[in-house]
């Protein structure tokens, strides 16, 4: 008996993997139903649903990149402190001192890649007409995921707290100042005043809400950190679950009628 067989025969192994590696048809079906991770999938699919030239694999890759971001992100959180005193220095240390500092590189490049793959996924879903009935709602869920992916990337951009970061966020969040009615330099904001008292000022408008201040400062860093590491990822994870559920409930990957 080889070592491999010995391990696979042990009580520990068998308690973890409820099924031996499937070799025949029956077991290949059963493994899909009994394994927690695999049960996301159906047991069998039409060939087209897994053809790379049809799906471009972009949804799957986006999901994988999301997982990579989660893992590397958690590792980065062990090192990084979101305060004016530490943020920049912690990133510096990740580059120069920390052994697994490459986590930051992987986290950043995978984030860029995820933005691109989510666009390509949308492009493919559009080009195969997969948003048509019965999949309209899953497309809407997808658009929400697209927005959140961009926001994840945007909130993360600030965290290194270097010149690149704060000015990109300043340029981006300056837009909020011009929100109609809700930004203090937006059209209509002047109408919102009571007895000569402006309701919308630079300390009450949409930009202030986003930044937690009149300019990009420590409160902004704190807000963006929490949005980036907790709030948005939770929502994204929830929406991805719904998205996958709907892919299956809507009849799997789209097929010609």
């Amino acid at each position, binding site marked *: 008996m080889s070592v491999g067989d010995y391990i696979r025969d042990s009580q520990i192994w068998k308690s973890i993997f409820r099924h031996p590696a499937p070799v025949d*048809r029956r077991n*290949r*079906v059963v493994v*899909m139903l009994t394994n927690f991770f*695999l049960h996301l*999938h159906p047991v069998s*699919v*039409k*060939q*087209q649903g897994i053809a790379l*030239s*049809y799906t*471009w*694999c972009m949804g799957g890759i986006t999901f994988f990149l999301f997982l990579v971001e989660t893992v590397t992100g958690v590792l980065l959180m062990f090192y990084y402190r979101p305060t004016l005193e530490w943020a920049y220095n912690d*990133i*510096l240390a990740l580059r120069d001192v920390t052994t697994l500092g*490459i986590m930051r*590189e*992987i986290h950043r*490049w995978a984030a860029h*890649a995820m*933005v*691109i793959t989510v666009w*390509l996924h949308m*492009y493919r879903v*559009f*080009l*195969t007409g997969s948003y*048509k*009935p019965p999949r309209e709602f899953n*497309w809407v869920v997808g*658009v929400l995921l697209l*927005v959140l992916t*961009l926001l994840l*990337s945007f909130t993360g951009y600030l965290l*290194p*707290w*270097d*010149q*690149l970061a*704060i000015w*990109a966020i300043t*340029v*981006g969040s*300056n*837009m909020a100042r*011009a929100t*109609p009615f809700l930004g203090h*330099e937006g*059209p*209509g*904001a*002047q109408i919102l005043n009571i007895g000569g008292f402006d309701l919308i000022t630079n300390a009450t408008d949409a930009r202030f809400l986003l930044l937690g201040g009149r*300019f*990009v*400062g420590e409160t902004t860093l704190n807000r963006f950190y929490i949005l980036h590491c907790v709030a948005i990822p939770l929502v994204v994870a929830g929406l991805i679950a719904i998205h996958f559920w709907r892919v299956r409930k809507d009849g799997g990957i*789209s*097929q*010609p*009628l």
Partner: protein
Amino acid sequence: MSHHPDLTTSVIKALGWLYLILFAMNAAWTFRSYSRKADVRITGVWGIITALLGMFAIAHITGGSDPERFLIRMPEFVKSFIDLGADPVTYFCGSTLVFIAMIVLRKWWTQPTVAWIMLNLSILFLALSMTDYDFRQIVGKPDNVPIVSMLFIVGFFTWLFFRRAVDNDERIAAGKPLYEVDNGGQEKVLVWPDLVYTELICMVVLSAVLIAWGVALQAPLEEPAAASRTPNPSKAPWYFLGLQEMLVYYDPWMAGVVLPTVILGGLMALPYIDFNKKGNGYFTFNERKFAICTFMFGFLPLWISLIILGTFLRGPNWNFFGIYEPWDAHKLQVLNNVNLSEYFWLDWMTTLRIFEPGLPIAPAGADFGTQVWAIVTREGFGILLVVGYLFALPPVMATTIFRGMFMRMGFLRYMVFSNLVLFMACLPIKMVLRWAFNLKYIVAIPEWFFNI
């Protein structure tokens, strides 16, 4: 003139690797041509090209002892020619023309050989351009590397789409079954092993790519944040540069708030306004021409290409720079844009004399109503145009160009749809007005932060 050398030994060596990849790609292509028993002459030509690329690679990898005298570089006259045509008008019109050509010539350029030649040429162009210092400065930035790859990836998938769509359209025309049906696509397979293994391989390959990428390129980290030192240019993250580019033509409340909201709302509305049942679950162009052209126009010339523009071609003061041009913060660009109301009250009324020429202004200390009236008359013409565009055009289009659609869509769907189309068109329209007439605002009410 930049005093930095265009070529250094390390650049030459690095380019050697690029040529080596190009060599390997073409070696494989030559082999493909050979094994498919293509015409001997064609295989021969590919063989010669491959050999040439191999020589290029060797020249780069071994050469470089005296970079100043290295011969393989982008000729100066090509550089100055390309930089000469570098302005937003040429860029946008060029990309729109390429877009139209892409659709019209889809049967031609989706042939593998044509696409292969285009791929080779674009990599060659990139490699030669890399011999320019200023080009390298901007394209070689680690953060910009994904954007360059995005260009190739989007190009590839667009090609793949058109190839499959052209094939399917021919099948439909000939009454034959679709590609997706013909090639066993409708047969059921077990997820284990077919899908699970694909996923596994995909994950391994991707992890390897990410690790290699992380080792090769260091994530950028600039000077510590300083609220007092504004960099020039200050750019939003790259995926928002399309929106930042819109700021040239529209004020922040439009470019940064209204238009993004409309884009997202439009995307969400898409499945509910596209009533065409055809083309669900397979690639086709002919069965959904309008939908595909509209979406692609939004995605390619208005989104991807504006990101490219914002990343690579916009320098200090958001001025436009050619790809080989140094980013000079003192480059002067004359801006004397004129509001529509100024055209109306100063130019046209001087000639036409329907109203007294001169911008209407309320007398100092006038009451609120008079002030509002003065503003509204001043901008009256522009307001009329905007209101007409948004409210009069949809019914007009419903009885003319979109007649068939209106009948099939019903009122509500049609109104949503036509407004989305109008909002999408408002960017190119403003661009053209700006370039042709130096038009600044159609409606200019800075008093209320309301400029269109």
